[in-house]
């Protein structure tokens, strides 16, 4: 857990509104685990004030580099997208719990909705290093938002794609596609509606799974209690857990969806 000024090595516009920024952050790169995030100070003035939590998308430990894949959703991410190679951004992290990466498991299943591939790509890097091949279910509105397909295949994983408009792969949602042959240990990330459906499929088929959640965040270190989600409280109904430190990755059965 560090606070550091990291230099931007590369800022790429992957698709209009979608960016991948690569940062030189040696210690953070060494420490990072898939599923963790960096709390990024996108501006330098008092407005916008808060940091932005962005999941770690890819890591190159030899070079000491971390990549973040993000979409412009507001002023903070717009400011970050405006930063160029050579500029610095202040980072806090890596923060949060990561995915459980089981060694010696031959098959893993990744289900990503749109920008939800952001943290899952790092997981796919790690699985690849462990010689674990994953079935990767990618969902998006159109084929254009099926991100990093070549890179994922180059890591040795198999892709099954689904699009809302049928422009590529299965015509429908990625969870519908996954539900046709549900199996394996599932890692999921995407919009709340998709994760809710995915957790139902995981439960119905008695699979194990981990989901990466997103919430408006304040401190990022567990103090402010802003980014909570409802979780199962063994024997006592539900309780609020902090996405920043208790998550952002939760066992699929723990999250209580509204």
């Amino acid at each position, binding site marked *: 857990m560090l606070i550091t000024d990291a230099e931007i090595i590369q800022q790429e516009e992957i698709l209009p509104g979608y960016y991948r920024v690569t940062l030189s952050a040696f210690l953070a790169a060494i420490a990072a685990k898939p599923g963790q995030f960096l709390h990024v100070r996108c501006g330098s003035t008092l407005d916008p004030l808060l940091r932005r939590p962005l999941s770690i998308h890819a890591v190159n430990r030899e070079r000491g580099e971390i990549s973040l894949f993000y979409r412009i959703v507001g002023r903070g991410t717009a400011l970050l997208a405006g930063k160029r190679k050579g500029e610095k951004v202040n980072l806090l992290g890596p923060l949060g719990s990561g995915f459980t990466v089981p060694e010696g498991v031959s098959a893993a299943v990744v289900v990503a909705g749109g920008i939800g591939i952001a943290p899952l790509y790092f997981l796919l890097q790690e699985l690849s290093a462990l010689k674990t091949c994953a079935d990767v279910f990618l969902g998006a509105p159109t084929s254009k938002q099926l991100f990093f397909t070549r890179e994922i295949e180059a890591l040795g994983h198999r892709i099954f794609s689904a699009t809302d408009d049928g422009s590529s792969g299965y015509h429908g949602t990625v969870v519908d596609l996954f539900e046709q042959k549900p199996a394996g240990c599932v890692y999921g990330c995407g919009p709340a509606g998709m994760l809710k459906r995915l957790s139902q499929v995981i439960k119905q088929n008695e699979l194990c799974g981990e989901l990466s959640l997103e919430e408006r*965040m304040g401190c990022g270190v567990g103090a402010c209690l802003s980014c909570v989600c409802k979780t199962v409280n063994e024997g006592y109904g539900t309780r609020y857990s902090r996405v920043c430190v208790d998550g952002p990755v939760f066992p699929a059965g723990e999250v209580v969806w509204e």
Partner: protein
Amino acid sequence: MTAPKRVAAEKSGMNLAVDIGGILMKNPVATASGTFGYGSEYAPYIDLNRLGAIVVKGITLQPRAGNTTPRLVETPAGILNSIGLQNPGVEVFIDDLLPRLVGYDLPVIVNIAGETVQDYGRLAARLDRARGVAGIEVNISCPNVKKGGMQFGSDPEMAGEVTGIVKANTGKPVIVKLSPNVTSIVAVAEKVAAAGADALSMINTLLGMAIDVKTRRPVLGNVVGGLSGPAVKPVAVRTVWQVYCEVKLPIIGMGGIMTAEDALEFILAGAAAVAVGTANFVNPRATMDVLEGIEKYMAAYGIQNINELVGAAHR
């Protein structure tokens, strides 16, 4: 447990110590309740021993789940929050959280909130017996709970009544945290002082709200929330200035302190100590940056004792 670091001030002989109604702080920089958890959350980032005091997240008699989400929204140079006093209750606090702070060399101030006047008395009595509590901060100004909270702080008579029952139930120093959401904060401060308060914390958040124009609904799950951050600083400085003129109690000033300059504004307006709140979310080392900046300012202007600066803008 790490030993307290020798700070520049100790070496140079500058005196940063302040007395907040009987709570001796080695420097004037504290944490604002609700922004620093129970301390351990920030231990990876700063040496807690260097803080003047820690004010922990508000504690209630029974555990509270807190409000529905979203609980936070960013506004121009500030944030609105509606956490709703999520906390594990006073018993879990005393058993599990307080002992983690006992080894540190810093006063622990416990913020308490009740739904009834009697709740405050019970909380004060319970904490009076707990080891490691330096003082009690009475939260009569939380805008995010349906019962109690701000309603005690917006009526001077009620504020005095709550102060009185807390004082009757503890021998520890009692700090009352005032709400800015009142017609006259001086009137509330006067009643609280008359009821025996040892010090004042000023200010809690300003009641506010934000609406999402896409969904045409309030952003916060609780509809309204408390505004904090740099946006509220001028309001907070003004209240400290006004109360310092009329009430002779030590003041812990807070509201949007991001830098040492901000903290010095509060001190010059009349605050004997300051609390850093929202800034912790942006910079986990904000308290240390503020402290080091105050030391530099004192060195630059040849100030030997921080107390020389308290209320200096009035003179």
